[in-house]
């Protein structure tokens, strides 16, 4: 079929402003999975290695490594990383369940997304209470 025979397509609107689209809950869980993972890669892994190394070096180095954990800023960093880890773990378990075809229908997928979010916040709150 020659190109001229095709009906002329009307220009359709392309509307992909992510901040204007109301994101469904599973989409929010998905992007947070990424953000928490990226955060742990950029901040978490080097901080973890530094901490373990200092904490094993000597009693003085151990005390110095643990000391920042009682400051407000240290507690905040620890809380954010703890939430990232817990959230990433829970979202990962949800992924494994989806791989096994558990809860892949829209309703259960939405519910499990909400459970992941709420449970991660609840666990982070427990960590926060223990820190402060």
């Amino acid at each position, binding site marked *: 079929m020659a190109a001229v025979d095709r009906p002329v397509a009307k220009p359709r609107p392309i509307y992909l402003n992510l901040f204007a689209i109301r994101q469904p809950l599973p989409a929010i869980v998905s992007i947070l999975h*990424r953000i928490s993972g990226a955060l742990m890669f950029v901040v978490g892994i080097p901080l973890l290695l530094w901490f373990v190394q200092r*904490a094993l070096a000597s009693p003085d180095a*151990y005390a110095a490594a643990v000391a920042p954990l009682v400051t407000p800023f240290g507690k905040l960093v620890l809380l954010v990383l703890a939430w990232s880890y817990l959230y990433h773990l829970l979202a*990962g378990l949800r992924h494994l369940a989806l791989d096994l075809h558990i809860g892949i229908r829209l309703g259960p997928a939405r519910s499990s997304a909400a459970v992941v979010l709420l449970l991660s916040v609840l666990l982070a709150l427990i960590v926060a209470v223990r820190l402060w």
Partner: protein
Amino acid sequence: MVAGVDKLPVGAHYGLRDWLSQRVTAIVITLYTALVLGIVLWHGGVDYATWKAIFAGNAFRIATFLFMASLLWHAWVGVRNILMDYAKPFGVRLVLEIVVICALVAYAGWTVQILWGNG
């Protein structure tokens, strides 16, 4: 090559391998987390002496190495996926991927130094 199949599907063929390795490494990371949590709870908290004693055991060192290897591999698959989605210009993505690989290999060396080095 199977007779009659005259074309290969495009792609680098790492999709299934990455899918599987991401899950296997995730399970190793989860099991190690449970192990450390269990050890800490069993000791009823840690101070320098218990911390040092925990890391003195060779089995724990090897478990820690396995954990870190899984963590770094897991991080590679995840970060590369992020870069594939957001770092579109080829040159930019290549540079970022090289930076990430260098960081991960350096972290692996740092892990070995912590576990089997002399302080």
